[in-house]
């Protein structure tokens, strides 16, 4: 029997030891076998019949979590599985030591028993110092859920008092200096908290509108009646873009969709935003580790509002990821930022993918 384990030096990666002696052979990969399916996993031989699997995207856990039956491991070379290499797979306790949570089990059982007690849909976001679009966020999402089902995680301590309706839940947490990893971590944790009370939890950034072609409210309500637990991403994502040469400065007290019309598809923003299962988001909320639970909703759109106004964008602090990623330029002065934004907008408006927002969306946000 083969065994999977982790070491203190390799908490994300996996170590696999085969019972029978294995020698290093060029081109050899680990084969994880479940029922009649075989996954080939690149691995590094480290001696003593042991391999290291980097497991950077937690693919191993993904496969294991889908399996009720026994799992087997084998060795393949040139895509051919060596039948005499197959061993049944078991796990050392170090495999799950850092990923084991007793509350997870009660959540599953209780949720099944409590389905009728849970509220339907919660929507949450997080803000630090960029609150310009927060009122718009409130205005749009209160058309979908009651204000007491909206949650704002305030991690910047800069939210103006009385900016939001008192019914909206504002949860203050300590400043974390815009660390993107921290943001996705506490949001993933907060999603689990909300799923203890709601059947569907939506996470969007404050500058994002999630719109369903058949009616967003109806879509979410229907989802809340389903037994299936899943994570949904929109099939369409667009950036709404200001054309400073043809469109006036934005008036945030009026519907944005009536003031802007240019959109550019943004594949990267097909975010897994609608959840009824635990979601562990990656940086920027563009992906989740629970890939097997993700489904694409054909009529769902995510519209990003980060570029709806040149002046607004220039006044906004540079995006945090730009600040933390190595090799990026330092933050520029205000005038430099405006010029930089102008160049950025001008280039974006020449993008051949530029198109017009669907007519049916006008007036929705």
């Amino acid at each position, binding site marked *: 029997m083969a*065994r999977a384990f*982790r*070491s*203190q030096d390799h*908490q*994300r990666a996996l170590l696999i030891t085969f019972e029978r002696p294995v020698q290093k052979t060029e081109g050899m990969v680990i084969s994880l076998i479940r029922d009649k399916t075989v996954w080939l996993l690149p691995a590094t031989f480290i001696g003593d019949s042991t391999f290291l699997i980097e497991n950077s995207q*937690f693919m191993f856990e993904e496969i*294991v*979590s889908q*399996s*009720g039956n026994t*799992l087997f491991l084998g060795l393949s070379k040139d895509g051919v599985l060596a039948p005499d290499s197959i061993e049944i797979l*078991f*796990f*050392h*306790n*170090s*495999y*799950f*030591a*850092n*990923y*084991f*949570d*007793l*509350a*997870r*089990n*009660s*959540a*599953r059982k*209780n*949720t099944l028993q*409590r389905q009728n*007690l*849970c509220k339907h849909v919660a929507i949450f976001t997080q803000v630090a110092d960029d609150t310009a679009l927060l009122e718009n966020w409130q205005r749009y999402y209160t058309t979908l859920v009651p204000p*007491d089902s909206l949650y704002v995680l305030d991690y910047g301590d800069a939210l103006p008092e009385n900016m939001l309706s*008192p019914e909206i*839940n504002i*949860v203050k*947490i*300590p*400043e*974390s*200096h815009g660390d993107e*990893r921290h943001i*996705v*971590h*506490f949001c993933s*944790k*907060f999603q*689990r*908290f909300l*799923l*203890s*009370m709601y059947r569907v939890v939506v996470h969007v950034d404050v500058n994002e509108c999630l719109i369903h072609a058949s009616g967003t409210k109806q879509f979410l309500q229907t989802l809340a009646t389903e037994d299936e637990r899943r994570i949904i991403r929109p099939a369409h994502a667009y950036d709404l873009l200001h054309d400073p040469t043809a469109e006036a400065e934005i008036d945030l007290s009026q519907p944005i969709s009536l003031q802007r019309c240019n959109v550019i598809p943004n594949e990267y923003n097909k975010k897994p935003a609608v959840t009824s299962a*635990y979601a*562990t988001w990656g940086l920027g909320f563009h992906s989740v*580790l*629970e890939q097997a639970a993700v489904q694409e909703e054909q009529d769902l759109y995510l519209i990003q509002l980060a570029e709806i106004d040149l002046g607004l964008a220039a006044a906004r602090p540079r995006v945090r990821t730009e600040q933390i990623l190595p090799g990026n330029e330092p933050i520029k002065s205000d005038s430099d930022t405006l010029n930089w934004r102008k160049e950025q907008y001008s280039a974006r408006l020449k993008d051949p993918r530029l198109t017009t927002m669907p007519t049916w969306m006008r007036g929705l946000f």
Partner: protein
Amino acid sequence: MAVAFRNQDQPMFVFIRLTESYVAPSDAQLALVTGGVRHELVGGFIEKNLFASRNTAFLIENIGQTASFSDIFVYQQTENPEEEIFLETLHFHHSFFMNFFDLATSSDIYLFQGHYARPASVAVAAGYKGDRTLLKFWASYYTRLLPPKHLYVLDGSDAQDAKHVLSKDINIICVPRFSSDQLGFIEAVNTFQRFLLANFQWVMQTSVNEILLHKFGIRQFLNDLQTRTAPAILLPDRVYALTSEAFTASGEKPVANLPHMVPLSASGKPILASAPVTWSADMQSTDTEHADFAQILEQHHIVTEAGLWLIRIVRNQPNGFSEVSSSTLFDEREVKEA
């Protein structure tokens, strides 16, 4: 190696299958040993080499988490408590942990370098079920120790009225009403504790009738917590009931009024944690302010903290301290004095 697994039809049992080379007597009992500590399993052999353990208190999960990267060994107990027979090391089928596996449990997934530095030191959370006076008392005590924005009230009251009682600086989050959905309330508390642990090094889970003291000063104790990096769940070494008489006996601060503090024989609850804590329901208790925080599932991770005292405000009842009655509320003046 022995293998532990679950059967979905019998979720409260964990089965351990020994390899054929060991034929244990049918009446044999097993123990698990890790880190030199022995844990006896409750159960018996249901067929040759297959031991079924009734695992109601999550003992085997606790052992697995305690062992972490170390091995777990299976021993066969004999009639002589001094003598045990080593059988083999324990491994697991994935059915054992599948229902408990959550990638977000570890912040390592975000590739934090070294230990993840949580931005702040201590948060205090409280479950609130409707006693406004105690809620005010709780807030007045803890805002003297910590910034108000580091206090979190989970409002499970029927009226969901905490927002009308406390200052805006204190975080108030409505959760399922305790009287109609106790499991939901506890699940919300458990998941919220994990959310707070993403932001704070330590989370203090209180009820609104509980205050925490330390023999050498609670402020100093809370400050010193910042230097403790190892995950821990702390149990106060003393628990006292403070009766309502203590509030009215003199002009002194009530906690200094020691003659009115009654030691409670019941063990205290593990109140401070830098690791996830899973509260279990104790629906039998009549004390509604802390009935749901009687026990945690991570029993084997608890450490008693010398000098840490938990003071529980108890309504003064003629027949003892366990009853709470709305007719014996403190008045506002008493709370202000406290």
